[in-house]
């Protein structure tokens, strides 16, 4: 089977267009023999299945989103070309931007707290500063096994304003009438829920990253008499900085898509989770609730652009800081 596939790949290589225009690859591997280059092209066979699925299920829908976002479908009058109308409306919508601001605030607070906590525990586990470390790690990781829907349901029950046990405990210790799902406390509550869901996962990733820091570096620092705090901050932290950057990135993408928690918590408290509470929730309500699919597509495109812009800004900022340092 594999041999056939390789032959197919070879044929594909032979017939590939623009063999001679392969300048950039040639430049990159100028020292390599030509046969290596030809062979390397066979690697394309390995990425084709992934790329095929990627095109079909990421690029095509993305393209379709952009396409449909310049139309509008009305109950009376059908589908007509709308140009930039949908974009104008979304860009001028205070509700949409309030959702964007909300997830930015949410993400900033939640990710900072979570990564600080995760790094703290990962460090003390790595240094072996606690008893039963293995047990704690297993416990901390458990929420990763809880689907977000189920987690949101559990927390909804626990924080429910009337019979929720957390609410009742808060009442018992002097915070009578605290509503954890009120306007003021809803976002903090969601932050707590998300921290509960993801701290263990981030902690375990940081822990394995810290473990991969070579022992002799740490020992050398110890012998020089560096205090433990310095070893953590000056030796360990820089070594795992790439992991932290990646975690910030992945968590930020997660935060920008906050959806399930508001959707579920809306069942426990009305009037707080507005239709536009987060951008994703707004897109959902615009499309499914309001049947304004084209408008929702425009929102999705704009949200994507916003996330990309924020990511680029973050990258540039890092590079700029790096140059200063």
């Amino acid at each position: 089977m594999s041999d056939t596939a390789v032959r197919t790949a070879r044929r594909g290589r032979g017939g590939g267009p623009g063999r001679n225009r392969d300048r950039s690859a040639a430049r990159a591997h100028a020292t390599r023999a030509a046969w290596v280059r030809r062979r390397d092209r066979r690697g394309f066979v390995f990425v084709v299945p992934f790329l095929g699925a990627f095109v079909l299920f990421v690029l095509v829908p993305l393209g379709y989103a952009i396409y449909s976002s310049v139309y509008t479908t009305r109950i009376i009058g059908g589908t007509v070309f709308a140009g930039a109308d949908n974009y104008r409306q979304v860009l001028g919508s205070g509700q949409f931007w309030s959702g964007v601001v909300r997830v930015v605030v949410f993400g900033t607070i939640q990710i900072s707290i979570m990564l600080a906590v995760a790094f703290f525990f990962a460090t003390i586990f790595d240094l072996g500063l606690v008893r039963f470390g293995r047990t704690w790690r297993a416990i901390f990781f458990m929420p990763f096994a809880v689907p977000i829907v189920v987690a949101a349901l559990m927390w909804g029950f626990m924080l429910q304003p009337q019979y929720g046990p957390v609410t009742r405990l808060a009442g018992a210790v002097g915070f009578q009438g605290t509503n954890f799902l009120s306007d003021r406390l809803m976002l903090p509550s969601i932050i707590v829920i998300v921290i509960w869901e993801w701290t263990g996962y981030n902690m375990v990733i940081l822990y394995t990253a810290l473990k991969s820091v070579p022992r002799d570096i740490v020992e050398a620092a110890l012998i020089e008499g560096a205090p433990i705090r310095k070893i953590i901050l000056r030796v360990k932290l820089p070594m795992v900085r790439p992991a932290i950057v990646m975690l910030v990135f992945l968590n930020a993408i997660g935060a920008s898509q906050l959806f399930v928690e508001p959707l579920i918590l809306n069942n426990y408290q009305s009037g707080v989770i507005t239709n536009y509470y987060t951008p994703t929730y707004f897109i959902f309500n615009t499309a499914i609730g309001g049947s304004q699919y084209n408008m929702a597509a425009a929102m999705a495109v704009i949200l994507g652009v916003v996330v990309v812009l924020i990511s680029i800004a973050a990258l540039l900022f890092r590079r700029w800081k790096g140059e200063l340092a």
Partner: protein
Amino acid sequence: MSSTSRVRRRDRRPRSVLFAATGVLALSALSACGGSGGGGTGAGGAAPGGGGASPSASLVAGASCRSSSATKITFWAWVPGMDRAVNAFNKTHPNICVTQENPGAGRPTYLALTNTLKAGSGAPDVAEVEFAELPSFEVQNYLVDLSKYGATQYQSKFVPWAWQQVTRGSAVLAMPSDFGPMAFYYNAPLLAKHKIKPPATWTDFATAAVKLHKADPKAVLANFGPSDLQWLLDLMSQAGASPFGYGGGDQVKINWTGPAQMKFADFWQNLINQKAISTVAPNSTQPPINRDRGITAAGLDSAWAPSYFAPQAKRTMGDWRAAPLPQWTPGANVQADWGGSTYPVFKQSKHPAEAAQFAEWLTASDEAWTILKTPPSSLFPTYKPLLDSTEFKSLTYPVSGSSKPNEVFVAAADGLAPIQWPPFMVAALTQANTTFGQVENGKQTLRQAFQAFQGQMVKYAQQQGFKVSTS
């Protein structure tokens, strides 16, 4: 979920309505799904066009068909126990084979209907659609005029209000099935303790509410949850303040800010300000708990209340009684309805005559109602022969002790106020969740919310190409 409120009216049934018998084949289908999933459970053959309908659609009935040459009809409904009626129909109509599928209560069904109707294939021949949602399908011109198939002959069998809801001029858009006339449903010992009688007018209601709250600051007479838009519209219709008007076509009336609407808003806001009523989220777990704990003394409830409050009642079991809704004009008889379903036939159907025959049998025959009146469907009929029967009126419910609440609910059916629904009900429900949530939250007055909602609805309707009038 944003538009759950829509689901609720029709769905207050014992057990889970939502999963109305996912299917006799559900378990066997599980093994099929483990294998390929695409292999199907055998329901696929019944889906015309096949397009939007999955091969593994939930087949809840239809296995009872005898002849393979029978005309195949696909039917979507979420009422539990509906499969019994479908099987009975198939048994007595060998030339027609009805297959029932259940896309889920309310929103999932409407979403699937909209998608398949728009796509041009995959829609069922007949489906369950609530009264309030019917205009949303009518405006898209998706519905078959059933008067072509003899539906008009059944007019006299139905409560006039229900018949008026499903007709547009001479056209019959759907067959009406069940509904929910409203009443003042109250905790009798609790009101008796405070010497409060069921209020005859809304003025009495306000007085009673204030009196009760003064006597017991923890207690309220009722809960007011406007984010449940259907309920709100029903109460407004009783006050002659119906904000929506739709008579077919591309014209829609939206008026949330007229004198009648503002009077309604001020009446309730006054009680909210005095804390004489609560504004707990209507679609949360709190209202029934508050009732059972003696915090909420009464509810403006629908005919299904006696059966649907039961699982939640613990301390107040047997205490609940029904009295007619309070009136705005002393001595008047203006009632309201909360919810109910209809069965339209869709133009996509290749067999509209057979589909109509099934819809008519399902809603206007003694055979069907003999089945549907019993649990788990327990429908409250618009079908007069059953509604008016002594047997039905004298039913008792554990929550209501030895009383006969249906006497009140059935009587209310005669005086139902006319009501019209916007031809974009899902959008209205979604928006209401946010706008009226602000009232329950205490951030806005009802008047402010009405004004905001007016703007939102007008904007939406105009965006959708409607000609909007506001008076």
